Every structure is written in structure tokens, then in C-alpha cells.
């Protein structure tokens, strides 16, 4: 076992997979010699050679298009989009090509790629370095969408994603790359080394896609969260005094519907939290699923705590970010309703 922060865990996952499978290639903007702007691919080019881990032109649509061709050949590209906010030029390739290739060719061709990209707020990144784009991909038939919330899961999920024969959008909550963040921005920053989930094996292991994890057992209300918001929700549960059951979805799609329904049927109440804008966010889908499957167990309206429906404002980071105060208030309202 080793102690890893999330960047080290992701790096270790790619290191393991480059070592195990010669068909795994890693590329993206600045990922080669430099090792990526967040250092996730540091040292990999030196260890495995130029052609295993290399820089690409600044052309997100181009590098995904190239990855489709590589996937069709039989390789397993792992590509980095430097920020999720930059993924839009590749949207046509992802939606029309990556997601549908297996279907439209009746299984003749597939594009088994992993698209890693840092997402989310809490870093004063402004509109173009803070967005949460998950709903743009959970809406697309043929994609899997994964969001880890800690180093152990990050490594195990990334290995699963690379090995998966379907394309995976792997969203990395960049605020928690270097330490867990519960939304209390005014408190000292904690490193991952103080957190039990920073313990991870140095070698190969997997965390299966499609399985949620209960982070805190509780009886009063179910909280559905992912990424940074898992830590915010855990803090809110402690601070509100509400005995919340916090579920880390880990895979957004296909979501672990059994874990969700089992918990909500037990607690009868549900709060959904995400950083992304509220309207047509992934929380809307979760809310609908819970309503469809748990309606007769519900004792209170389902609440969503989400980013406001504005572009991400630079100077108002903490008014925008759905911090523990907002989540705690929602927990109380829902528990007392």
C-alpha cells in the first residue's frame, strides 16, 4: 500500500495500464514531456517512451477524432482534455462518433477510449475552468460517465474505465486533486495523506463501474452526491445533526439504481447535490428516477442543491459553490418536512 493524492493515484493507474497493455496510449495537450498541467501524466513519457504518452495539437475535436480511429484499429487511447470546459469542440466527435460507433456499425467497430478531464469549481477558475459538464454526457446513449471522489476510487475506477470496451467520460473533480474539500474554504487545506482513502495499492486493482458506495450510513435522509460534493455532503451531515445516509454514486451512468432505491426506501427522503447548474442537471434525472421507483416510500419532496443557473462567476466563487451550509439547510428541511 502507498499513500497517494488523487493526481498520484491517477498517474499510478495509467502507469499500471501502460505497463500491462501495449495497446494503451496516452495523449493530450501538454501531457507528454511536461506531464500535464495538473501533472497527472508526469514521468510516463520518460518511463514508457515518446510514442506511448505524447503531446497533441490544441484541437480537442481532432484528438478525439484521432482516438476514434485508433480505437477502431484496436488500441485503447486514454486522452486528456485539459479542462472539461474545453471539451465542447470535441462534442460532435464524442456524441456522433464515439458514443454511436458500436451501435451504428452493428458491433463491427467500437471506440473503447477513456476521456479524462478535470471538472468542477472551487479553484477560482472562472467560467472557463470551473464547469461541471456531466449532464451533457449522461444524456448521450452509448457513453459511460464516471466521477471519483478519492484517490483509492480514482485509481481503481480509471483502470476499470481503461479496460472497459465502451467509451468512458472520466470526470476528475480538480478541487480535490490534492486534498479532500468539504466546502469550508475558510479553513486550512487538508492533504489526502490524512484521509483513509489515500491508501491505495501500488499495483493493479479495480473498482467496478456502475457501483455506488455508501460513505455514511444513516436513517433520516438519503444524500446522492459525487465528486467534491461527497465531501461537502459528509460535512453537512455532521454539522446539521441530520442522520443522513451519504451515497457516492462514483459512476453516474449507468447509475447504481439498486443502491439508490434501497437507501431511499429505507430513509423515505432524498437530497441530491451537485455543482453543475440546476436546470436539466443530472440531479433532475436522479430526482425522476427516485420519484418513479420510490414514490410510495417518500415522506418529503426530493430536494436538489446545485449550482445556480448562471455561468460560473469568478468573483463569487463561494456564493455560487453549493457549500455545506446550503446542503445542511436542505437536509434539515427534508428531514423535518
Amino acid at each position, binding site marked *: 500500500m502507498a499513500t497517494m493524492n488523487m493526481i498520484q493515484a491517477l498517474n499510478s493507474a495509467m502507469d499500471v495500464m501502460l505497463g500491462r497493455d501495449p495497446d494503451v*496510449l496516452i495523449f493530450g495537450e501538454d501531457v507528454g514531456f511536461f506531464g500535464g498541467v495538473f501533472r497527472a501524466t508526469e514521468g510516463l513519457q520518460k518511463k514508457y517512451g515518446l*510514442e506511448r504518452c505524447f503531446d*497533441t*495539437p490544441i*484541437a480537442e*475535436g*481532432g*484528438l478525439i*477524432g*484521432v*482516438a*476514434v*480511429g*485508433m*480505437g*477502431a*484499429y*484496436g*488500441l485503447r487511447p486514454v486522452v486528456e482534455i485539459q479542462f472539461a470546459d474545453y471539451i465542447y*469542440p470535441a462534442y*460532435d*466527435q464524442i456524441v*456522433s*462518433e464515439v458514443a454511436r*460507433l*458500436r*451501435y*451504428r*456499425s*452493428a*458491433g*463491427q*467497430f*467500437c471506440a473503447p477510449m477513456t476521456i479524462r478531464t478535470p471538472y468542477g469549481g472551487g479553484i477560482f477558475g472562472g467560467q472557463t475552468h470551473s464547469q461541471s459538464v456531466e449532464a451533457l454526457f449522461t444524456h448521450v*446513449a*452509448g457513453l*459511460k460517465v464516471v466521477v471519483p471522489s478519492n484517490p483509492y476510487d480514482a485509481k481503481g475506477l480509471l483502470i476499470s474505465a481503461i479496460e472497459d*470496451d*465502451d467509451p468512458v467520460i472520466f470526470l476528475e473533480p480538480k478541487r480535490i486533486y490534492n486534498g479532500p474539500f468539504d466546502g469550508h474554504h475558510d479553513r486550512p487545506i487538508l492533504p489526502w495523506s490524512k484521509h483513509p482513502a489515500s491508501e491505495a495499492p501500488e499495483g493493479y486493482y479495480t473498482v467496478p463501474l*456502475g457501483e455506488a458506495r455508501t460513505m455514511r450510513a444513516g436513517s433520516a435522509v438519503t444524500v446522492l452526491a459525487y465528486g467534491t460534493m461527497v465531501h461537502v455532503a459528509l460535512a453537512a451531515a455532521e454539522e446539521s445533526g441530520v442522520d443522513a445516509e451519504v451515497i457516492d454514486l462514483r459512476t453516474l451512468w*449507468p447509475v447504481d*439504481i439498486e443502491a439508490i432505491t434501497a437507501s431511499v426506501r429505507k430513509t423515505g427522503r432524498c437530497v441530491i447535490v451537485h455543482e453543475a447548474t440546476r436546470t436539466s442537471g443530472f440531479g433532475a434525472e436522479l430526482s425522476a428516477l427516485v420519484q418513479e421507483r420510490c414514490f410510495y416510500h417518500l415522506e418529503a419532496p426530493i430536494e436538489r442543491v446545485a449550482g445556480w443557473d448562471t455561468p460560473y462567476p469568478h468573483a463569487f466563487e463561494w456564493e455560487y459553490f453549493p457549500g455545506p451550509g446550503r446542503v445542511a439547510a436542505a437536509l434539515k428541511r427534508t428531514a423535518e418536512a
Partner: protein
Amino acid sequence: MTSTRRTDARRKARSRTPAASPHGANALSLRIPEPKARPGEMLDFGNLRLSEAGSVTRPPIDAAARDLRDLAFALIRVLDKDGRAVGPWAPTLAPDALKRALEAMMLTRAFDDRMYRAQRQGKTSFYMKCAGEEAVAVGQAMALERDDMCFPTYRQQGLLITRGYPLVDMMNQVLSNAHDPLKGRQLPVLYSSREYGVFSISGNLGTQFSQAVGWAMASAYKGARRIAAAWIGDGSTAEGDFHHALTFAAVYRAPAVLNVVNNQWAISSFHGIAGDADAPFASRAIGYGLPALRVDGNDLLAVYAATAWAVERARANLGATLIEHVTYRAEGHSTSDDPSQYRPAEEAAAWPLGDPIRRLKQHLISVGHWSEEEHGALEKKLIETVRAAGKEAESHGALNSGSRPSIATMFEDVYKHPPWHLREQRQQLGV
């Protein structure tokens, strides 16, 4: 006389200064490009740069791209007006190979004619012919190895036909019937055959161009010998994917043959809407540091020779070549299009580069390996071949009648294994 007057009036209307401008003669004016001729106007091919057959030099395959820039503005032609093969690009193809090429082009045209009629008879929703452009796909398929991977558009059906893909399977796809290899999931003509080295055709134009470069990079990474070929229309060269493909191909020296099929028309927009009409599409390669060849796309020998040059160069690890095939879309964009609305009806017949089938036929006759009688007999035989295939395909059903693919398969292949929500939705549909 009438049409000339109308042309003059329209050109005058095009160049006038906006009356409302307070700047008068010094005012800026916005240019909206227009083709030389619209319906009812005099034909004018003045934009078309031609070279004499045999006049363009053939450089060695390892020539530096910077020494090849003139080729982007010339036009490689092998067949002269009498059907003789002339000049340094004239390939050494045995008469049997030329006859196979002629047969593949004729079969493609016969196939198109039948499927067009099938659409008109309501047997399917949609069809796209490649009439007038057959030499591009057929000539290139002959210059590529059988296991090189093709990333075509919807107008290179000649690739599948030249590679011997069963006509019945093509028809099954067009008819979306019970034997459709793509299980009724794709619009007609968006074929896919991994076995025959033809990548799944997308309806989103241009996406295949960078994908082909990725496939070629993969082949190079694996140290294999296979190369990729991709096609894009003149209109779609305006998409970002074209730029991505050329950028990545140049940066990573991808073993690919990148083809622009300039058939003059993107639905109703002439080629001057996709880029400046004075700059050949081939010349775009220059800025990327890639070699470019501009070829008479209706001259099968020229298409074959240019492609063979680019294939040899790619396989020698010297990277990609951009080839512009100058041709003409002799019929509508698709069964949903009526070209008489936007271009002169006589333009196709008057196209200065002629018809690819007629030109190869003329060549074969001129060298003594073919005759009108043999040609007529072959035409009859191919029409019969297509008719028989059509009957067989229709026995497996069509879009709106007879057997269809199993509806349960609608939920398959979205993912490798159907997740819970698709299993549930399949149950909801009751299949």
C-alpha cells in the same frame, strides 16, 4: 441571348454598392460568392483550371513536399481527348485490370440506377447516387491494398463494389430489411464493413477525416504495413475535421491518403462557398507541409496513378498526401434533392472532363482491347446481375413491407452489454 442578358443583369446586381451607404463609392461591400451560372444561364466553366493530358511531371515518391507545390495547381490527366494514355503519370495497368475497373464503374452505376428506382417505388426512404464520380472510388480501391482501411463518405459505394462486397448485402442495408448487416440502424447507403475494410460511414460530414488519421497513426505505432484512406467532399472541407486531419497527419507523419472529392456541388452550394474559388482544394495542403496532387477525377488512369503514388509514399513511411479529385456530381445530392432548382440542367452533360465510364471505354477501344459490342453485352449482363441481386434482397423485405430486423436488436450494441435501463426499456416495449 436571353440567358446572357439575364446573367449580365445578375452580375450587375451582385456588384452594386449598397445605396444606403453614406460612403458612396468608397463604401465597403460584402461579397457573397455565386457560381458562374444558375438555371437558365449560359454555361461557364471559366473557374476550372485544366492542364493538358500528359503535361504534368511525376516526381519521385520521396520528393520533399516543398518541391511539389506546383502540383496543387496543375491537373494530372492521363487520357487525352482521343482516349490515349499519355505522359509520365500513365500507369502500367494490364488490359484485364482496366476491364475490371470499367466493369466496377459500370456495376456501380447500374446498382445506383436500381436503388434510385427502389426509393422512387417506396421500397426505402432515401438513396444517394455517385453518377459521374465512379472513377474516384473504383480507381482508388484498385491502387490500395485490400486490407488498407477506407474511411469514405456516402458517395464512394464503388469501394465496396470494387472490393467485391456482395451487392445483396448492400441492398439489404439500403432496404433496412431482415438481412440488413446494420440491423436497420443506419440511413440507407451509410454502409459499414470491417471485413471489407470500409469504416462505418457517418452522416455527420467530415468526422471520418481525422479518424482515418488516427487509424493510420495506430498502424504506424504497431509497426504494421497497412495504411488508411479517407474521403471528404468539397463542401465538408470547411469543417474543422478537415483541418484537424491535416494537422495531425502532418505532425505525426500518418500513413494516410486524404482525398477531397471536388464534385463542384455541396447540395445546392457551389465549391466557392466552401473556400475561395481561385484556390484549389489541393493547395490547402501546402500550409500544412503536406504534398498535394490535383487530379482529373473522371480519368480512371489518372486517379489510379495519383493514388498509387500517394500509397507508395505513405507505405514508405513518408506520410500523408492530399489528393483533390476534380469531378462533377452528375445527378442530385440525394433522392431528396432537385438540382434543376439551382444549377443549369445542361451543366452535367457539358462538364469539360466528360464521363469516367465513357472515357475508359474509349481508351480500351482505342488500344484494341474492347469493342462497342463487348461493352453493350457487359452492360446488359451487369443490369441483369443487379436485377437478380435486387430480387434476392427484396425477398428479405424492405423498409415498409415484408421482414424487418428483429426489433429486440434495437436495444443491443448501445453498450457491449445492455445496462439495466436498456433491459428495462426493452421490456417496456414488450420485445
